[in-house]
Each structure stands twice: as C-alpha cells, then as structure tokens.
C-alpha cells in the first residue's frame, strides 16, 4: 500500500525579472511529492532556489511554470494548512509565550477551552512549560524557535514548511532542536518539507533528501535515507550507512 501523497510539486519553474538584461532563472523543472507523515529535505548551495520553492508552497510567491498541489488542490494563497517555520522566528513581540501560541486559533475563532488545552499540550511538547508568561525577548534563540514551532503545530497544518529553521543556532542548540524535531515527528507524524544546507542535518532527520544544483535549481538526485527510526544522533552519525549517504551527497554537491 502506498501512502497518500500530501504535497505535489509538478515541473515547477520560476524566473525573476531583472531591470537590466534577461530574467534570472531560479528554478527549473522541479518535481517531487511528499507522502503523509514523510520528512523530506532539500539541500543545495545558496541561491539554488530552495527557499523560493518553499515560499511558493507557502503561497507567498507563485511559479512561472508547473503547479503546486496540496491534497490534489492547487495552492493559491497562504493558509493555515501549511505551517511555515522561518529561520528568524516570526513571533509577536508584544505577546507572551502562551498568547503567541494561542494567537492563530484565537483569530480563527476556535473555542476558548479547546485553545487553552491544546496550547498547554504543545507548549509542553516543545519544553516551554515553565516560560508561558515570558515574552519573546526574554527567550534564547533556541527557545524562540521552539515557540515558533509550537505556534505552528497548534494549527495542525497538513504540511510543515521549515526554511533552514536551525541555521542561525549554535551547534549544541541545533543538535537539541534536531532531536526535538524527531520527537515531535514521532508524536504527531507531521508531513515535513525541510530546507537546509547542513548535509548531516538533512540525512539525520529525513526519509528522503533531494539534492539540488546551483542556479537554475534542479533536483540532481534523490537520496533515500533508510536508516531506521528512532534515530539517536551519536549512534547514527557515526554509522557506516550514514557516512556513505553523506559522502554521496557531498560528491553530488561538489559538482
């Protein structure tokens, strides 16, 4: 039985107009699908269009060629069914942790009791239960990213779109966040599109990694990561299969 496809990227291309000279081709003929509860990463050099693709899936931008489908329906605008986790956490600085998490459902008119129950739940999931009344400026970078993730999860999105979410964090914090992401994945089974240029990170968390070429971005190869879950970083990162995948990816990117 093949799992249901949640997100489909079909022959997507994107050109950016330039005031002087011909337009710039950012993406060319990119196609892939993400099944329910799969974690898929895009890796590639800076400027390969991976963020552009994520923004188009989020509905912030539109393709010039091809189409983007969520559960078979064409993506036309941003929506709560696609939760976006930005590299720089986009939080409401005037709201505390609890209110930041509740903000989305509150605006959509979800009943109060249901919100507070869910909020408590997700805040615990990301380990911020002792910081509910803190404001974003009182939190560390990692904690802000946890908060952003909780705020997105409470919306129960169909797809989680993560744009280099741990790229601005220090090494230790990044490892902690990767572990957290896997724990959350085991608990909620979200469908995730993850963008990174950290190869270790991509392999460690993903079921599949698409390796992209420099501009114009195309998928040059897809790597299946058949390392069983649950994965523990210390064990996985030193294992032979992990090393082999990493080496293969490095070679692809070196071209």
């Amino acid at each position: 039985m093949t799992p249901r496809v949640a997100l489909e990227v079909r022959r997507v291309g994107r050109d950016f107009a330039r005031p002087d000279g011909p337009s710039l081709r950012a993406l060319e003929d990119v196609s892939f699908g993400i099944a329910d509860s799969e974690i898929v990463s895009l890796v590639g050099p800076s400027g390969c269009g991976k963020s552009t693709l994520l923004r188009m899936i989020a509905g912030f931008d539109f393709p010039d060629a091809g189409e983007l489908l969520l559960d078979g329906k064409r993506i036309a605008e941003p929506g709560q069914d696609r939760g976006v986790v930005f590299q720089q956490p986009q939080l409401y600085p005037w709201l505390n942790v609890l209110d930041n998490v509740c903000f989305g459902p509150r605006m959509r008119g979800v009943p109060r009791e249901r919100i507070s129950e869910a909020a408590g739940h997700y805040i615990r999931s990301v380990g911020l239960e002792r910081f509910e009344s803190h404001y974003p400026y009182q939190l560390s970078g990692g904690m802000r990213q946890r908060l952003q993730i909780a705020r997105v999860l409470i919306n129960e999105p169909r797809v989680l779109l993560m744009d280099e979410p741990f790229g601005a964090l220090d090494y230790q914090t990044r490892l902690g966040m990767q572990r957290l992401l896997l724990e959350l994945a085991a608990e909620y089974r979200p469908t995730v599109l993850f963008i990174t240029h950290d190869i270790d990170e991509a392999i460690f968390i993903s079921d599949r990694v698409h390796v992209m070429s420099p501009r114009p971005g195309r998928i040059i190869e897809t790597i299946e990561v058949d390392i069983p879950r649950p994965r523990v970083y210390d064990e996985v990162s030193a294992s032979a299969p992990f090393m082999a995948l990493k080496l293969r990816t490095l070679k692809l990117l070196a071209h």
Partner: protein
Amino acid sequence: MRKTAERSYRLVSLTSVGVVLAAWLVASALGVLDPNRLPPAQTLASAVAELVQHGYSGKPFWLQIAASMGRALAGFVIAVLVGVPVGIFIGSSRMFDAVVSPFLAFIRPIPPIAFVPLFVFYFGIGELSKIALIFLTSFLYMTVSAASGVRSVPEDLLLASRSLGLTRRQIFFHVTIPASAASILTGMRVAMTLSWALVVAAELIAAQVGLGFLIMDATTFYRIPYVFVGIITIGLIGLALEWLLLLAERRLLHWRGKQ
C-alpha cells in the same frame, strides 16, 4: 557594571544641577543679584507667592497654566486622533502616500510660528487659532511616525500571520497596528513636547491669558521676576509631560528594541 556606571552618571547630573542652584542661592544671600536682571531666590519666592495669591492681570495663576495646557492638549489630542489614522493609511497605501506626501513634505519644514499671523487672521485671537497651529504641527509629526511605524513591520511577520490563517483585516488590526505602536508612541512623545513649546510661542504673539502671554506681558511692564517664574513653570511642566509619556511608553512597550 553598566548599571553602576548609569547610576554614577545620574549622580553627576544631580550634582551639576545642585552646584548651579547652590551658586545662585549663595549669590542671592550675598545680595549681588539685580532683581530685574537675574532675580535672587527671595525675589522669585515672593513673585511666586504673589502670583499664586493674586494671579496675573486679573486672572489666577492656575488659570494661566490651565489655559496653556488646555490649548496644547486640545491641539495635540485632535492631532493624534486624526494624524495616526492618516499616517497608517499613508504607510499602508503607496498610492495615498504618493498623493498626499508632497504636500506634507512641503509644509513640514516651515517653522510653525510662520503660520501664527495667518491663523490669527483666519481664526481670530481666541482659542481656535492656537489650537489649529498646535494641531497642524503635531499632525504633521504624527502622520510621519505612524506611517514609518506601519512600514517598519517586518514583511515575514505579515506572511507568517497569513500562514496562521489570519484574514487581511485581522492582520491589520492585530499585527500591523500593535507592531506600529512603538513608533506611534515615540511620535506622540515628541509631538507632545512640540505642542507645549509651540503653545507658549503662539501665546507670545497673540493671547490674553496663558503662560506665554504672562511672560510677554510681564516683560513689557518690566516685571522680570514674573518672567522668570513663567519660564521656570513652562520648563517644569514640559519635563513632567515628557516623563509621563516616557513612563507610559516603558510600561506599554516593555518589549520594544529587545528582539
């Protein structure tokens, strides 16, 4: 460590004010100050007592203060009520910005005082001319700070809000407005100070009551101690207004600038 440094600088400020005050008091005690040039402390004290007891020019001292404050506040409040929505509109519509900004940009550098004679001609010597002047100046300032507040809301925060399922209307009221509050409140603080300075200036030219009028009139009749009391009162009230708004800003916007 930074905190101790801050505290010691505050001490320096207090000392420097203290030294100047002490020098003045000593000079007063020695009797070397001319009451009609730089009045000694005892002269100022009796001028204050007289103003409080008998008022000035047939009107009590508190009324002189209240008249100035009333004008400043009236102009300021109307300017905030009108200027903030207009500024928000300018900040969110590039088209509206293009239509009105040339006029605002032209009027802004004109010293408000230049409008006083014209406003007196239009609105008479009564309250309206002064309130209109203060309104105009504060309004110009409030539109700028509200517009720049709206423009400074990070694009990604707006996009993130759409992904959380907010409608454009909800984003405007629940994201754009609170995110602009910092800039708007700072604008209000400056506009308030500006209004206060301006009302006194306007009263110097045309008024029958108010602190500006008191200073002008007392100078004409060579009652210099009264002039000093008037100026000191203006200064103290200006400081108090500034402090009040700064306090409000710190309480309401504790989160600002700490991201």
